[in-house]
């Protein structure tokens, strides 16, 4: 799709090979490999402390990897760290804007740090403020901003250098539903209008499900699985049909298993748990069969797999809060406090 500096044609904007980062004895990121295609929204899903933020910090050159290779926008994060920085935008998890400065001055400061000329950055900053609907608050100090406004300002700051690739670390952490919807809207706009590639982390399943083209599930520093939300749900083994019949009726599990769409049947007392490929089509077939065998069907329920189920299946646990180091705890508290204010 695009051509890199070395002349090779590729559609991968990020290539990561065996990337690891160790803090003391803790393997925060453990031998992770993945590719991200140009123009897609890729999400890292995992609980706090799983290594999502560390991966973003490695790819945005804020941390140095312990081992492994990564090429971002055609540049090595080791050899051409500055080129990587010029080509990507970062929207960190914390609110990093300077509270004592106005919104627009924060964006202009970012632009200065990228080395942009004011003749370029001034109109651009104004347009970005319009994009994130902050133009009315542009000249107010950030300390007067609400959590949602701060998040949108961070987004504008991350876009000031016309990045080809934008990293968003927990973009909706601590936001109310309306602001979250707004942030989702901006993220989709960026992908669709600017054909920007987005790499985001989240521990909200519904966020990963609705935004991402592909998801990587990360747990204890390991990349457990990569796939589209649909593919990941397939791992759970299709839809689940739960049928309850009257007590002391004969076990017809083996007959049910003969139905083509059925993958697995489990019977517990008077409950059949049946994994099927297509729940809508399978359930009438199952009930018809049961009735023809003289069983009395009392209730039928159809459950579609969720990412939550996939997550549970892959990692053996639910998404949950984990211990993190003191500094990130402090920052998270600050972030949450500001988000709520």
């Amino acid at each position, binding site marked *: 799709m695009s051509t890199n500096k070395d002349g090779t044609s590729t559609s991968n904007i990020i290539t990561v090979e065996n990337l690891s980062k160790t803090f003391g004895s803790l393997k925060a990121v453990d031998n992770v490999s993945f590719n991200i295609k140009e123009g897609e929204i890729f999400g890292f899903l995992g609980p706090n402390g799983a290594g999502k933020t560390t991966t973003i910090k490695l790819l945005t050159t*804020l941390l140095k990897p312990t081992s492994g290779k990564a090429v971002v926008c055609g540049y090595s994060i080791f050899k051409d760290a500055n080129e990587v920085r010029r080509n990507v935008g970062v929207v960190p998890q914390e609110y990093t804007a300077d509270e004592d400065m106005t919104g627009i001055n924060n964006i202009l400061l970012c632009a200065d740090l990228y080395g942009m000329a004011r003749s370029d950055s001034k109109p651009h900053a104004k347009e970005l403020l319009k994009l994130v609907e902050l133009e009315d608050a542009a000249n107010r100090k950030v300390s007067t901003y609400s959590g949602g406004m701060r998040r949108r300002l961070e987004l504008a700051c991350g876009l000031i250098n016309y990045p080809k690739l934008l990293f968003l670390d927990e973009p909706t952490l601590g936001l109310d539903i309306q602001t979250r919807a707004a942030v989702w809207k901006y993220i989709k706009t960026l992908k669709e209008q600017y054909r920007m590639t987005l790499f985001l982390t989240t521990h909200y399943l519904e966020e990963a499900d609705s935004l991402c083209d592909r998801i990587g599930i990360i747990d204890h520093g390991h990349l457990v699985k990569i796939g589209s939300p649909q593919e990941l749900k397939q791992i759970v083994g299709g839809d689940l049909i739960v049928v309850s019949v009257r007590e002391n009726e004969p076990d017809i599990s083996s007959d049910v298993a003969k139905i083509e769409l059925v993958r697995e049947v489990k019977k517990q007392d008077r409950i059949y748990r049946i994994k099927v490929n297509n729940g809508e089509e399978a359930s009438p077939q199952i009930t018809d069969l049961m009735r023809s065998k003289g069983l009395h069907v009392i209730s039928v329920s159809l459950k579609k797999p969720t990412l939550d189920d996939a997550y549970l299946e892959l990692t053996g646990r639910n998404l949950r809060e984990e211990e993190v180091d003191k500094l990130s705890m402090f920052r998270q508290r600050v972030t949450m406090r500001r988000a709520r204010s």
Partner: protein
Amino acid sequence: MAKTDTDNKIKTSENPEDQVEPVDQILVEEEKRFRAAPKLDRSPLHGLWALTNRDLRKWYTSPPQLIISLITPIVWLGLFGKALNFSSFISSSGIPIAQQNAILISYFGTTSYFSFLSCGMLAFIVLFTSAFSGMSVVFDRRFGFLDKALSTPVARGTIVMAKVFQSVGKSLIQSGIILIIAVALGMETSHFTVQGVAGTFLMVFLLGTALSALFTMLALRSADWQTQQAIINLVNLPLLFASNALFPAKLMPTWLQDVIKVNPVSYAIDGVRQMLIGAHGMNSLIVDFAVIIAFAVVLSAIGIVLSWRFLSK
């Protein structure tokens, strides 16, 4: 399928008066801008003024901070300078005036202790202002601004030197105020020359650069302001008391005089006394400047080198 579903969900959850159309117009304009690659200043110095001015602006646009940092030197000089009137020991001894002056000049380089102290006070204010340059690094790390700066292509050394120069800027302004107040309170001006005053500010600039670089590099990896405060106390007071800022080195024990000779702050004060009150220095002015220039250059260089290694983990 899932995509359109969510699109609809989002639209319904939005405010109805959301102006969709203007945003779309902006997008067309923005799309063009995104296509054209921006021209970036790739010099290693870009961003230096932006970062320096960020910290300075916080200082001069915050009235309480500004007023406090202007009042502090007034209080120090007014109270400290007038309370510690060492020359009164001699003037109250009954010795004839001519002899009194000879004794005072031999110790203080001038007949007025207040003039002697005023020069020391310049170093005092530079020391204390510089000490807080490290604190500012700690807060930038804590609140995430440092990470934001580090994710841009701004040179790591520039981040350190901006911290140094913002502190030097404050030191220069406060030194100017100290000097004005000192003169108002009776500092001897008969030896003032344009070159002398300019040289004094140059000395303040160099000493401030060196000390700020020192405190900044001590804070490069720290996210902990309590430790930083302990470091300030540990480093600052010895640098002040083991110098000739408040009292002539001549009257101190010889071992302490040796310490004073390796304390760069003494050289800065020695130079300033020669330039402002015409004192006979411990060293020639050239030696004083050479030591302070070396001090500033070496510490800045170390700070920049350490920033490459230690600013990010």
